[in-house]
């Protein structure tokens, strides 16, 4: 029996691929075929496959966005037969909630993340400021300007600018939440014409223009990581998983100078952080559901974490899924960002993401099928605003129009 597993090409997944001999040794008779793809390609491939029942994959790596939608359509196998030592209750509640529908688990989290502030202690010190544990946006703006030294290629803040619902819109949606904005009101009416959005976007564009790196409108996670690692960013607000990279002296020139803080807020009760988990799900069409479930259980089990710790050190364990990991002193010692990560994850509430009530689930996304398209299209507009090719007002207006258009077409509003 051969399982075809579609994975995203990030470090933790690749490591799992390398360690999978452990699984095949335990389960003779099961072979693994890996399809490792870049995130966007992966999403496109697996979605096409599952929606057309192509049946090419037995295990898919999917995110918290897909799981509720797909589970509702009955496309995913419920993970009901997990082995007893799996300990479902050990999963972090926020994550588990995001992967369950009606209390049933449809995908097992491989790693989870939220977002937080990473900053350079040395530069902060040089600027004469101290980073509070839970900063406000005003402080961030002030610090960013103070740290910026463009002549030496030091930019106070690096934020995502590359268009995409999972790129700049992840950051901006989450940020908007903290500014009191939301995607839709309870009647699914788009909200980009509200002052909250205008405030969010103006703040973002101004901040980036004054203290951001050049070319920010094409920077995503990867580009910002490279910038931060080479010492060109004062602060970076992004995924918690980045913490282990920026503190790894092998890749990072600033490893010993990184500090962490919660994502900023504006005093409205919501922080600008998101929640995401790359998870393993099993498509309903597969003939090999049993073997697939064995694999999923293996890859997301406690023992897998221990195996990684043993082989690669605790700092490299996939984070953000299990309470037990954060309770583990060895992990806390090896990962100085552990506490901050946990707090960030706990601070996100997918079911109640915004200041004002919304009809949808999801912090930095809206869990409806149409969101990928809308999110990316809006992302394009905001990216253009950042690049300066349109004004903030124009970008918001276009965003409003296109969102209304798509929602009308999809039948949410008349």
């Amino acid at each position, binding site marked *: 029996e051969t399982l075809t597993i579609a994975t995203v090409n990030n470090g933790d997944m690749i490591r799992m691929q390398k360690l999978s001999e452990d699984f095949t040794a335990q389960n003779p008779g099961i072979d693994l075929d890996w399809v490792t793809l870049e995130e966007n390609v992966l999403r496109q491939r697996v979605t096409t496959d599952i929606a*057309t029942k192509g049946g090419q994959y037995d295990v898919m790596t999917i995110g918290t966005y897909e799981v509720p939608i797909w589970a509702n359509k009955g496309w995913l196998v419920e993970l009901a037969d997990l082995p007893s030592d799996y300990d479902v209750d050990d999963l972090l509640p926020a994550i588990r909630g995001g992967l369950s529908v009606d209390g049933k688990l449809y995908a097992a989290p491989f790693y989870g993340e939220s977002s937080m502030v990473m900053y350079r202690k040395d530069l902060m010190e040089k600027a004469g400021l101290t980073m509070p544990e839970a900063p406000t946006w005003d402080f961030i703006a002030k610090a960013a300007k103070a740290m910026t030294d463009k002549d030496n290629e030091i930019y106070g803040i690096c934020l995502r600018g590359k268009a995409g619902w999972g790129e700049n819109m992840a950051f901006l949606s989450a940020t908007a939440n903290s500014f009191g904005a939301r995607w839709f009101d309870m009647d699914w009416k788009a909200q980009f014409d509200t002052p909250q959005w205008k405030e969010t976007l103006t703040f973002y564009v101004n901040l980036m223009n004054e203290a951001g790196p050049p070319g920010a*409108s094409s920077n995503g996670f990867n580009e910002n990581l490279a910038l931060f690692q080479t010492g060109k960013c004062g602060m970076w607000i992004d995924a918690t998983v980045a913490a282990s990279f920026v503190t790894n002296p092998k890749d990072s020139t600033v490893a010993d100078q990184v500090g962490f803080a919660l994502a900023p807020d504006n005093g409205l009760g919501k922080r600008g952080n998101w929640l995401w988990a790359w998870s393993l799900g099993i498509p309903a069409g597969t003939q090999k559901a049993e073997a697939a479930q064995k694999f999923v259980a293996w890859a997301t089990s406690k023992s897998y974490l221990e195996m990684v710790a043993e082989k690669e050190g605790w700092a490299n364990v996939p984070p953000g899924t299990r309470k037990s990991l954060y309770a583990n002193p060895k992990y806390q010692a090896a990962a100085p960002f552990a506490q901050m990560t946990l707090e960030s994850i706990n601070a996100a509430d997918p079911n109640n993401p915004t200041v004002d009530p919304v009809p949808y689930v999801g912090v930095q996304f809206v869990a409806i099928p149409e969101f990928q398209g809308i999110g990316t299209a809006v992302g*394009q507009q905001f990216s253009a605003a950042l690049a300066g090719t349109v004004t903030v007002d124009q970008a918001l207006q276009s965003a409003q129009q296109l969102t209304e*258009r798509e929602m009308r077409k999809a039948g949410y509003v008349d």
Partner: protein
Amino acid sequence: MATAKSNVAARIMISPAVLLLLAWMLIPLSMTLYFSFLSYNLLSPGMERWIGFLNYEYFLTDPAFFSALTNTLILVLGVLIVTTIGGTLLALLLDQPIWGQGIVRILVIAPFFVMPTVSALVWKNMFMNPVNGLFAYVAKSVGLPPFDFLAQAPMLSITGMVAWQWLPFATLILLTALQSLDREQLEAAEMDGAGPFSRFFHIILPHMARAITVVILIQTIFLLSTFAAILVTTNGGPGYASTNITYLVYSQSLLQFDVGGGSAGGVVAVIIANIVAIFLMRMIGKNLEA
């Protein structure tokens, strides 16, 4: 040379190619046509319903459509202009007797062998990146602020990248054409008192007209469906600044999984491609006959 028997054989021999291509074109195309009248989202299977021309209405009134159309034209024309002019100049250069001609030719050909994705990645990350890219480094070392190519001039940058890939192709064809020019014609022109420029414009260029047409035809075919370079570098942005028709259809059908809308876009793209094709064939037909 035709006898009745061989004519029958000729018909039989051509039919596999024609029938296969006909099938390849008609079957998916008719499915696409059918889908284009449905409300069909891949993520909502089983909810397809007939909605008439609504998909077309949405696609054609999409604010992105107009810029996609212009961008498609800019890209195709831009690359064609760069490659034909550049290719002609390069061909002229490589036609001269030089030492190590073989090696230079190899160097010039190389970009044609590079996968479009790889090329886009390399240009984007190692050259055009405003912080780590080589261009930024050069700009900084002469005291200029680095230019953010992909954000400030996305179409220009993409055109440049694609042109780099197609330049060798144009050069090769034009070079072969140039080398087929009867040297005596050039000498005759020289005797007739024509200087280098006159010789180029009156003799060489007209001689290469046919080759240039072929370059234009083949490249247009490939350029109309440029997509990897955009996907990898700008994702069509910022805004719609670098979205072309192909990318727009791609984003409809594979980012939004709106098969109905994507199919409508596909049909529109087919129509546009055919308009271009008819136009090109006219031009080619004229030039290939002579």
